[in-house]
């Protein structure tokens, strides 16, 4: 350390920037770029590409289960992921049933997003996704472990108490819905897709991975942990965080491994087209520039701190 002096040396100053100053710069760095419209080039990660590949290869008309466990607290990332997922499922006419384990708010949040995407489709004159016919909200299953076990062992029994209103407004058991037509057990489900900001994905993976193709769209913080399940093959594809959202959005825009598309992932076999001309670039694209400026600030702060270390070390030696 440098000697104690009345005036701080430059090294010491760099080492002791007040937290308040850092915080204030961060507010500016996140508030200002939100208003800018700049597209940032991208290179999708292999796990995102595999997620897209599987979503694009599910046969039209089949059924997937979506476990949606996110709420407003992780809206920044999960909303973008859920939007992208629903857009792909609806454009490919895949039926889905949404269930939530854990957070009581999650079913309502999911319903709101489906409604919002439906409105977006209505504005474009596309077919609306109808409750009961095309999709189901199975609601909350408060016990994640038990539900995972239950779906693995006896899916129709697990969903037996859940009811939904059909087209005529009559409440009926969900297993009678067209969504579950031809579905007897979890093996008949084309994919089990988890959108979450918590560990609920792991609970499901532990209990279901050998029964059904599992996919996950998780927040950045759950990314590393979930990646171990992707690496061991328990998950077939996954997207993590805002980068994952942006990956999906760019692949929806210009396809994957298609000639001429910037999205080339050699490790993923096959070519998968995008949905040109539709709403593809959304939340992820809007936030990614701001993310850049924030991370850049972080890197700058660390670099400045280390310059401080080096400068004061030199002083100490002399």
């Amino acid at each position, binding site marked *: 350390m440098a000697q104690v002096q009345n005036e701080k040396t430059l090294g010491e100053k760099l080492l002791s*920037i007040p*937290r308040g100053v*850092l*915080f204030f710069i*961060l507010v500016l760095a*996140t508030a200002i770029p939100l208003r800018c419209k700049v597209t*940032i*080039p*991208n*290179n999708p*990660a292999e796990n995102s590409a595999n997620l897209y590949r599987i979503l694009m290869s599910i046969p039209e008309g089949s059924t997937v289960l979506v476990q949606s466990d996110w*709420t*407003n*607290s*992780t*809206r*920044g990332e999960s909303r973008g992921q859920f939007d992208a997922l629903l857009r792909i499922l609806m454009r490919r006419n895949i039926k889905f049933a949404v269930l939530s384990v854990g957070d009581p*708010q999650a079913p309502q949040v999911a319903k709101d997003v489906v409604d919002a995407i439906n409105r977006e489709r209505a504005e474009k004159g596309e077919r609306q996704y109808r409750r009961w016919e095309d999709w189901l909200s199975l609601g909350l299953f*408060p*016990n994640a*472990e*038990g*539900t995972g*076990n*239950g779906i693995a*062992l*006896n899916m*129709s*029994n*697990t969903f*037996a*108490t859940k009811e939904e*209103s059909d087209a005529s*407004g009559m*409440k009926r*058991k969900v*297993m*009678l819905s067209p969504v579950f037509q031809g579905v007897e057990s979890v093996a008949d489900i084309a994919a089990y897709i988890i959108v979450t900001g918590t560990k609920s994905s792991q609970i499901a993976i532990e209990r279901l991975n050998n029964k059904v193709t599992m996919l996950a769209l998780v927040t950045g913080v759950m990314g*590393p942990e979930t*990646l*171990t399940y992707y*690496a061991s093959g328990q998950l077939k594809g996954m997207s993590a965080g805002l*980068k994952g959202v*942006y990956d999906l959005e760019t692949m929806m825009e210009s396809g994957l491994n298609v000639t001429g598309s910037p999205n080339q992932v050699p490790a993923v076999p096959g070519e998968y087209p995008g949905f040109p001309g539709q709403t593809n670039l959304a939340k992820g694209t809007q936030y*990614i520039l701001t*993310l*850049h400026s*924030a*991370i*850049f*600030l*972080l*890197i700058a*702060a*660390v670099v*400045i*701190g*280390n310059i401080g*270390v*080096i400068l004061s070390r030199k002083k100490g030696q002399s």
Partner: protein
Amino acid sequence: MILANATNFWARESGSGGLFLMVFLTLAICAALIFGLLQMPSRLRRPVVATFTFVSGLFYVLLWIWPQAQDRKPTDLPANFTESVSFWLSDALPKIANVSNILTAFLLGLGVFSLMRVHLTRLAKKQRDWSFSIVLLVSMISITIFGYWDWAQRQGMTPLQLEEATKIENWTTARLGQSLLFDGLLQAMDAAMFSLIAFYILSAAYRAFRIRSIEATILLASAFLVMFSLLGLADLFWSNMINAAGGSDPASFINNFRLSEIAGFIQKTFQVPGIRAIQFGIGIGALAMGLRLWLSLEKGGVS
């Protein structure tokens, strides 16, 4: 569908006299047992708690180790004793799975009671910050009232009425109050507190990521590489350099030095196996602790 309606020893038809009789009998027997517990000599206390713990854990252990019946159809009856047990276990699973939740819910009162007691005492004794205790109690009571009021109004509505009632033009005072408090405040505060972490991450990184020790330097280096790979711009810049160095040929070896490749390599080679190894330890620790709790092997029993 048929299963859901089936009645057996454990389940009686809803609204029937038999059901109410059984519920009443259960409560009466439990009351008698509680009275018995109060008289329990202290040497029996531990075995009693240990028995409850053991029996609860036994369910899942049995579920794990008992052969499961294959290809069971809803109308099937068990063919032999092994199957009887296995059928019973898998039918009971959804019910048992709820037990922890229900108990935890009943115990929540303990917590809310503790919180109220602290703040009521503070208020009564006019201790420091007592005015904020009023704020706490008022917000607590108001959301409870609005919450239950709104819920009560929604009871007994048909789905169609419910649909109508959720439209904002038809909102009642209860619904409005509940919405403002819950959606307007509580949820916004959740998100606000969550996003505070971004500030702290900046100050923590600024302070901790310094090349002082080997460990800190390693931490810094790998964090930086991964962060750079997340920056599309940095990635692109680096890619262009690689392309210039001969990477435009897809077979070229230099392609392995793309940022996303390096970050992926770090994650696949060090992070995933490292976490996996920690998880093995944690898993075994949890298994051992679970065994000690289940069999009440420790000095203090379950607590």
